[in-house]
């Protein structure tokens, strides 16, 4: 963190001192010759809003898969609250308090919305193997699912089959599925992809509210820079599998390297700068 801009001191304090929840140490993943994630070391501090940005193919999703356990790293470690979970199976991580969403909508398409969320609640309960009791008996799961659906604004569609929902609502439902078991840390992989522009602030606002109110840690991969800049406490920029820079939003925005990586070669960068310049000239 070379340059830290002006940030509220309380937040700075939290960023520097709050314990590390999730940590990646020298994480590497190779697919054949391709090194998708290359020696990534990352610390996610508790109750912060941590965004990961970078161009397509920078390895953000692979990193997510390593953190959530969908993929096993070629080398390196993943620690959760100091505990090594590099080789812990996916479902164990969920029980530890790790929830994740996917870039592509990943749901139970032929179940109802309520059932999708209810399954997410039930997962961490202790009634999974009660095969002799009717589902209806476990009203607390359904209650919690309804509560979550209310929170994400889907309570009026709870009985529709998930696949019949429009894309934006499916994303909301997914968010509900992650929120439902009240995990300690939420890994959100482009939760706004496929949503209409008007809906994005709403969803992001929702995530932010939840993060603040229930003191959760959020790790977000996102392309919409407006969103990233406004909500993040910390931003990590990835490029070609490695961490290019890390810091507070202001610092990242001012980082030349980051701009280069995001905009490609300087030729194109210059052109855009020029365009921006013209625009601001006209605006003023």
């Amino acid at each position, binding site marked *: 963190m070379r340059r830290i801009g002006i940030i509220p001191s309380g937040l700075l304090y939290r960023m520097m001192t709050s314990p590390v929840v999730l940590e990646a140490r020298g994480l590497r993943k190779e697919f054949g010759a391709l090194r998708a994630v290359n020696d990534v070391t990352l610390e996610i501090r508790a109750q912060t809003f941590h965004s990961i940005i970078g161009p397509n193919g920078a390895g953000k999703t692979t990193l997510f898969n390593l953190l959530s356990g969908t993929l096993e790293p070629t080398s390196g470690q993943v620690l959760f609250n100091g505990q090594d979970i590099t080789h812990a199976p996916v*479902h164990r991580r*969920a029980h530890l308090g790790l929830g994740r969403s996917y870039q592509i909508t990943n749901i*139970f398409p*032929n179940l109802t919305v309520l059932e999708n969320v209810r399954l997410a609640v039930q997962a961490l309960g202790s009634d999974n193997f009660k095969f002799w*009791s*009717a*589902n*209806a008996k476990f009203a607390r799961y359904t209650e919690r699912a309804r509560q979550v659906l209310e929170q994400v604004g889907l309570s009026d569609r709870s*009985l529709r*089959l998930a696949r019949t929902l429009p894309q934006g609502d499916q994303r909301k439902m997914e968010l509900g599925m992650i929120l439902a078991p009240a995990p300690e840390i939420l890994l959100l992989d482009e939760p706004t992809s496929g949503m209409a522009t008007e809906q994005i602030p709403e969803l992001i606002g929702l995530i932010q509210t939840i993060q603040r109110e229930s003191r959760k840690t959020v790790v977000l991969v996102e392309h919409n820079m407006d969103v990233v800049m406004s909500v993040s406490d910390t931003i990590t920029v990835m490029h070609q599998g490695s961490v290019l820079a890390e810091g507070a939003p202001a610092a990242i925005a001012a980082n030349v390297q980051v701009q280069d990586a995001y905009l490609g070669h300087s030729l194109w960068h210059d052109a855009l700068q020029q365009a921006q310049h013209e625009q601001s000239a006209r605006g003023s």
Partner: protein
Amino acid sequence: MPRANRSAGILRRHGGALGLMIVLALLPFLFGLLEGASPLAVWNNQAGASKFYEGLLIEVFILAVYAISYDLVLGITGLLSFGHAMFFALGAYLTGILLKSFGLPLWATLLAVVGAGVLNALLFSVVLPRVKGITFALVTLGFAAVFNIVIQSHELSDWAGGDVGLQNVPIPTWLSPSDERLRFYFIALVFLFAVYWFYQRFVDSPTGRVCVAIRENEERARVLGYPTFYFKIVALTVASVTAGLAGALHTLYQPIVSPTIAGLGFTVAALLMILIGGIGTLTGALLGAAVYRLVDFFLLRFTGSSSSFLIGLIYIAIVLFVPYGIVGTWRLRNVEWRTVWQERLAQWFGIKESPQDLAPPTTEQPPD
């Protein structure tokens, strides 16, 4: 919830099944009346058309239990197993061998069948973490093939009867399928409905829902925190035990056990039954079993030896033209209809849904 209300709910939800059970219970007497035999004659197991159709229906009931257990594995949990016949055959052979060669009492035999069913399911589950999809199908096919070979082997022929099969299994007289067929009929009927009821409950329980979730999207279920492996074991165990008990009933009814029930063909029969009825629907498995057995019976009766050719033709036609099966096709319309109406009601009257009225967890589409 008030008690009266609750029993009314049960009646509403299971009314169809109860009605069907009553109709089936009365059916032998109806057959008797059509033939001119009095209900008393039917009661006393006198020979006649009624007794004959009782036998046919007993076979249907046994097949229905077998089919529903396969539906749990393939249709509900989404495991493509090609060794399901082994579940059934193990129960059938074990019953025959224990009754005939070891002279065990019936209750002990059935207990052993249940135990063997659990072990059998565990055997199938051992490979689950390693192999998926078509490879799982091949491995299970392999297990069943080995069982089929071993059971027909010369070394075991003293017990299992080699490639002729097990003959003359001694059946307790109170259950004799020839002298006490009506009693047998009722036992099979009650067994079928007990299994059906259990399966409905199972699918509607937390465990069952997770099984459905595994079929829909196993990766997602795992990320949500379900150790999917154990749920698959549970589903396989339930299916294995029920199929094994169906096998036991088969032996008790037939008194002979032919090795064909251990072959791939018998697994395929289960697949056909649930495909005819509608995969993943439970009810469809029962319907499919009935269609399968009855079509087979009537074709054999009216067309003689070329019946299997015609059956093959009928299956190909079903595949091409009724892809979702009978219940599947019906339910496809029904769920949409229901969803539409629920939304309309909510819109007009502000009615909120109650948890019981959740749309059924089963799909309208085969998991392919």
